[in-house]
């Protein structure tokens, strides 16, 4: 009923065992490198390598086919368009580039746990943290909350659609989205309260911000509480 929330396929191949940060770094470098090269003599082997990497993952064929339909459409249509509008040489270059990237990315995506990728991203963000533009703990919380509330939003969307259908309305996007957004906004207050009530942010994150206790969010103060004054405007 709810969508499956990860592309990761458990397994024990060399790529599964490889460290997530290595895999992602290689992917990133390949992504840049491939656009610096035009020669099919270089790009061809690259694409071959990517294909081998993907096959080494030993995905069940049916699942692999399903994962490849998206990239396949791109791989078929983009070079075709390039051949028609540009030249055959461009078509080959473009085709091999995308082939390399899409297959390699799929290989990495299938073999790396979401949590591991997020760990790497969080570590990559850490240097930025010193600039005070990024708060790694906040990013971590945002990702977790999003994962928690994607299925919840999905349920709510259905529930609202159902409740409307049960009451005779079907399919007006405005009538559907207004209550969804309002419910999400409304629950934000309770969720934030629940997060605060469990002592977020964690101590490490608090030290990175200046002054320990200052990092505690200023709580709602009535009669014009930070979290609630919004509602009063409704009157």
């Amino acid at each position: 009923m709810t969508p499956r929330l990860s592309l990761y396929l458990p397994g024990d191949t060399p790529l599964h065992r490889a460290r997530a940060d290595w895999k992602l770094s290689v992917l990133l470098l390949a992504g840049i490198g491939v656009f610096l090269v035009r020669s099919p003599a270089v790009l061809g082997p690259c694409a071959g390598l990517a294909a081998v990497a993907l096959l080494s993952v030993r995905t069940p064929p049916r699942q692999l086919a399903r994962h490849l339909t998206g990239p396949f459409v791109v791989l078929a249509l983009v070079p075709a368009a390039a051949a028609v509008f540009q030249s055959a040489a461009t078509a080959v270059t473009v085709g091999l580039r995308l082939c390399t990237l899409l297959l390699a990315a799929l290989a990495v995506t299938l073999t790396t746990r979401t949590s591991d990728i997020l760990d790497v991203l969080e570590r990559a963000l850490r240097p930025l943290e010193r600039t005070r533009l990024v708060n790694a703990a906040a990013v971590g919380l945002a990702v977790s909350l999003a994962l928690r509330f994607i299925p919840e939003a999905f349920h709510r969307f259905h529930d609202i659609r159902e409740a409307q259908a049960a009451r005779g309305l079907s399919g007006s996007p405005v009538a559907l989205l207004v209550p969804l957004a309002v419910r999400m906004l409304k629950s934000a207050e309770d969720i934030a309260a629940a997060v605060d009530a469990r002592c977020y942010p964690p101590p490490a994150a608090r030290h990175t911000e200046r002054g320990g206790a200052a990092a505690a969010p200023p709580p709602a103060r009535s009669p014009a509480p930070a979290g609630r004054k919004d509602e009063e405007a409704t009157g």
Partner: protein
Amino acid sequence: MRVTLDAVTVRFGSRAVLQDLTLELSEPRIGLIGANGSGKSTLARLLNGLVLPGEGTVRVDGLDTAEDARAIRKRVGFVFQNPDNQIVLPIVREDLAFGLKNTGVPRREIPERVERQLAHFGIAHLADRPSHALSGGEKQLVALAAVLVMRPELVVLDEPTTLLDLRNRNVIRAAVAALPQQAVVVTHDLDLLTGYDRVLVLDEGRVVHDGKPRIAVPWYVEHCS
């Protein structure tokens, strides 16, 4: 109204939440009790096509919920366990009017029907309040009023008294008792079931007891607590 379930199984993922249920529901007041996770809400949602059976069929007055969901929903009102899902418009009065507009009730009649329903529940003072700023119990009353104002033929209530105080619980109890319609009530509030015609006890997706409340409720208390 007659609801029939024929060899119904519902799965979420690989877990069977309801298993091979065959039932006929036609009594005016039916209670549905059972442990947490036993499948009560799922069964309730089958009755108006909010959940469709993986195997088997559910028929409401002969209509298959998998095929005629729209027609069925017009006749089967549903009060959700969490009233937040149900309240769709920002002002209480508008929310009650919402369903009426959709089913083509003449505009002139709408305000009066809304007022009458609110007054009937003793919540006329909430009419102009923003629906999202109500207390839990207030919301539950509004959600029930919004369904009843549409005068469905069968009302399915999923734990309608959970958040209510004594007075409001009595209001709902009386309201349900006074309904001219058939009602199916899912509840953990066993007192609610006195005077019902039939009580089903669910356990792990199966009906393990089916009878008069006088017998079914003590049976449940003995076997399940």
